[in-house]
Each structure stands twice: as C-alpha cells, then as structure tokens.
C-alpha cells in the first residue's frame, strides 16, 4: 500500500498536468467547485462535503460542440470536433465516481455508444477522496455505497493525519501511481483506516434504501402523492443539473452566415418545453407529469433497463432544492405507503 503526503498533492497535480487537464475542487467566491486548474496547483481544497458541480461536468460537459459545418456555395462540409485531451479529476467523492458507472450504462451500452463521452472516459482518470464527514444530505449508504467506496474510481485516497492512504482500484490507477512513483511513499502502517471509511454511516443512513421499490412503483403511476409533491415544485431544473446521473440533453444549432456549429446542452425534464412537440402537443403538460417522470425514471424505469437505481445518494438535489422536494422522502414515503 502507498501513501501520499498532503503536502505532495500539488506536486502530483503539477506532474500530471504535463499530460493531462487537471480538475480539482477549488474555492471560488465561497463556493466549492470542481474546476480546471491552470498553473494554480496549490488551489485545491479539502474543505468540502460535495462540490457544487459533479464530476459529470468533466466527461459530459454542460455544453459541448458536436460538430462544425461550412455550407458555402451549397458545398456542405461537416467536421467532427478535434480529439480531446487526457484528463484527471482529483478529489472526486465516492458517490460521484459511482455515478459515472451509471452514465457509462447510458452512454456506452446498447446498440449505439456516444463517441464523445467514450473518448473522454477512455482518456480520463478519477482520483477519489473518501469522505471524512458526510453531512445531513448524504445517503450514499442507501444505494450500496459508502463514504469509502471504490466503485468507479481509478484511485481512492483515504485521508489520515497528514497524508492519504492510496488504494489503486483499476489498472489505469496502478499505472498512474507507477508513473509517478517518486511522489508516493510506502505505507507501512497496517491500520483499519480503509475499513473505517467503508463502514462509516451517513446521517440519513440506509433507511431510505429503495430495495425492491421499482416493482411496487410500476402500479403507482396514478398515485396522488405525485400531485402532492408536484404542487410544491417550482419547475426549475436545479435538481437535474446538479445531479451526477441525469443525462438528458438538447441539441442546438448555432448558425453564423454559411458556417455554424451544433452543440449539445444539458436539458431538464422539469422544464415546460422539454417534451413539447412540433404542433404544440405536450405529452407531459404539467409539473405533475414531469415530477413523476423524474422520480419514476430514477427509481423505476432506469432500474428496469439497467438493473440499477439512477441515484447515488450524493445529496445535491436535496441540498439545492428551494422547496424541499427530497428523493429520500419520496423513497421512504413510497415504501411506507406500499
């Protein structure tokens, strides 16, 4: 087992930046965001429970160019984007790393894969830091994860006194450590640190573990509860945009004379116009249908399709929701009622 001194992290990031873009949690106007470091490798922070934006940003950015085109004199030329750079995300939380596996299901499985996402994933590494202090919004343990879980990460760092215990999870992680061996040190202590993190409980705990809820929800399409929570919902896209597992997007064309580009941008099932079709037919016209769609997709449809719930318990949506629409509340309510 290796260890990494906290004082060596900046050195590691700087070294990695020779080949890759580095993303790490930084404080920006009092908000902790996962942002790209350029020459400021000391700016990373440990003072956060969860970053405002999830690691989804790095592999499936809010805004990305799908292609450019030139259409002068009716000679249409379409250019796909240039290859992406290698990237390393440092300081990801275990829940976010687990969320990447859910996005993998969506974008890499099935008949079609998403080449943008695939390329980024292949060129990306996740260095996770286990959570020392989950807060009242955390419920990863309800989704078979824990503050010390390794799923989805390449390397997991477990904070100890003035260093991190380093666990390489994947081959990619092992190679990364090997290539930067001089920065890591041998850890001789054989302590229960890792186990402690893995068995740590979050405040909400696993009371809201959905279990077989998906089976029950199949018949709950017309449950009045949806109407109840939808009445409260303001219809902003907050919850879906901060969610590390939500993957809906819109495709937009931007034309400038004969040239232009096509981009894709996150979109939210909470928005009025999300399902609106040409001819003004809207299959989900009110907030009731759209709220139901969000929860049903996470707790039923996704499970049917990929055999996993589309939630990792990171707590972002519940922390950010202005009117207290709480997925754990939905789960516990539905479990009790059914």
């Amino acid at each position, binding site marked *: 087992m290796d260890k990494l001194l906290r004082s060596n992290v900046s050195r590691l990031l700087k070294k990695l930046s020779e080949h890759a873009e580095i993303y790490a949690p930084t404080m920006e106007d009092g908000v902790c965001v996962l942002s790209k470091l350029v020459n400021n490798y000391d700016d990373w922070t440990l003072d956060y429970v969860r970053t405002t934006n999830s690691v989804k940003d790095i592999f499936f950015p809010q805004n990305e160019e799908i292609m450019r085109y030139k259409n002068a004199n009716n000679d249409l030329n379409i250019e796909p984007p240039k290859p992406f750079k290698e990237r390393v995300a440092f300081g990801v939380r275990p829940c976010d790393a687990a969320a990447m596996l859910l996005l993998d299901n969506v974008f890499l499985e099935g008949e079609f894969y*998403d080449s943008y996402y695939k390329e980024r994933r292949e060129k990306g590494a996740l260095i996770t830091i286990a959570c020392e202090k989950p807060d009242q919004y955390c419920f990863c343990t309800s989704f078979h994860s824990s503050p010390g879980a390794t799923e989805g990460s390449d390397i997991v760092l477990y904070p100890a006194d003035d260093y991190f215990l380093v666990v390489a999870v994947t081959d990619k992680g092992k190679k990364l450590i090997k290539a930067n061996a001089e920065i890591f040190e041998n850890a001789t202590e054989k302590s229960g640190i890792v186990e402690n993190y893995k068995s740590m409980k979050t405040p909400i705990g696993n009371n809201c573990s959905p279990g077989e809820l998906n089976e029950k929800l199949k018949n709950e*399409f017309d449950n009045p509860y949806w109407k109840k929570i939808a009445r409260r919902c303001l219809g902003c896209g907050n919850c879906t945009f901060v969610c590390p597992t939500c993957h809906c997007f*819109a495709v937009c064309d931007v034309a400038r004379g004969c040239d232009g580009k096509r981009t894709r941008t996150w979109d939210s099932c909470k928005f009025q116009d999300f*399902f609106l079709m*040409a001819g003004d037919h809207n299959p989900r016209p009110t907030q009731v249908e759209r709220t139901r769609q969000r929860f049903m997709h996470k707790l039923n449809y996704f499970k049917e399709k990929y055999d996993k719930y589309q939630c990792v318990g990171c707590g972002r949506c519940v922390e950010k929701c202005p009117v207290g629409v709480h997925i754990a509340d939905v789960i516990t309510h539905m479990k009790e009622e059914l």
Partner: protein
Amino acid sequence: MCSSHNQLVPKVATIKKIAEETSSGDVKTFYVEFDCPKERAEFNNMPGQCAMISVLGVGESMISITSSPTRPDPLEFSIKKMGKVTSALHDFAEGQKIGIRGPYGNNFPADEWIGKDLVFIGGGIGLAPLRSVINYCIDKKESYGSITIIYGSRSPSDLCFKEEIFENWPSVEGVKVHLAVDKIEEGEQWDKSIGFVPQYLEQISPSPDNAIAITCGPPIMIKYVLESLEKLKFKDEQIITTLELKMQCGVGYCGRCNIGDKYVCIDGPVFSYKQIKEMPQEF
C-alpha cells in the same frame, strides 16, 4: 467526404427531387441521395424505420423513411410542414444539401406477418410510414395473403401519394384500397366514401382471422381506430401501431422520448397494441 463513425454527426446528402403531395402544399416528398455511395451502402433501412434529417443551422428532426428497401434509390421522405425544421426544409430547393443520420428505431415486423392478411389503416400524413411497409409487402406479395388499405384524410386534396392510392396499388392483384375523406367542399369531385376513418373501418369490417392490422395517423384517429379494431375482435397482438415523441439524439440517451423503460427512438416507433397497453399512458 466519407468520414466519422460518430453517431451524432450526420452524413451529407443531396435533395434530388421535391414533389408536392397535397394541393395545399403542406406535404412534400423529398427524394434524397447520399453524396458518398459507401454511406448509402451502410444505411440499411427496413420499412418503418426513421432517420434524423438535419437542416444545418436550424436543427434536426426524426422523420420516417417513406420508401421501401425493395426500391432502394433514392431515399424518400414525405414531410408535413409542422415545426422549425420541417418548415425550413419546405423552403429548400432541389439540389440543396441536408444531413442525414440513421436509420434509427425498430421496423414493422413484416417478416413475421408472412402468410397473413394485412389491413393497413392510415390517416393524413400517417400514410407516410405505412407506405414503406405497404410497398415492401406488395413487392413480396406472394408471401402475404390479401392486403387491405384503408386511408382517409380531411379532404380529397389532402390525400398523399395520389398516384399510388389511385393507380398503382389498386392495380395489384389481392390489394384493395378504400379511400374516405372527412368532408368535401361544394363542387369538389369525389366518388369514394365520406366519413371518418374509424367508422369507415367498421363499415368495411375486415376479418380478424389470420390478419394483422397496422395503423398510423394522428393520435386522435389512432385512439378511435384501436377501439374499432377491438370491436372487430382484433386481438392486441394483432394490432400494430406507432408512437411519436420529441427526439433529439435518436440513439437513446437524450431522454426526451422516454416512456417507461422504453425509448421510442430505439425501442420504437413500432409497437404492438399489447406493448402499448403495458406502458405508462403518457404520450
């Protein structure tokens, strides 16, 4: 330029011909050819499948392929002027370039219908997706029993594919075409039926024995056609229809066409009535 296996990047194609289908001009058929023959070869469409058509700078739209794979070139798309993309497309002239990607979605399971009688029920522009499978079945007529086509529209001028419904199809042995319009204007020439498609269907009353009914049209028409078919004792498995939702990626991850655990763009658009009954009812 033949390149890119990227699913979201369209291939360049040229509009070879544009034909007006209706006298009001809101439906046009576009005859389209890929610029690169290799891309055409890779485009293995089956009847009922769709393609994403791009008007660069405006957007993309999922459009059903109207031509049958038994008559491969050129590809045909019959498009009604509805939203942003289709309106832009209607302004296009012959020779202009568009982007195409696909084919997407499932197809009409025509090979499972071998030996059966087929009843096609279409309304308005809903005949467009049916046309591919009708031509497919007509071209392989020896494999199928009788073919009944029931087609209606608002007025005689709104009928699409006039050459086929009046001449080509009725002239094939074993194919019957029944036409109806909702109403006619004074002075208009019309010697076929007047009335709505569902009632007309009940009037014709095709037998459900060893038959398959395939329907496509405006949602409200589909709803009543399904009721009529049930009255005629068609079983749920015998009824095939299509669903339509807003789509942006066509490959199953933009999340718009999600109904239950299905995505219309990859699991649809063709569903049996049995499948539809099992889905959450929001479309």
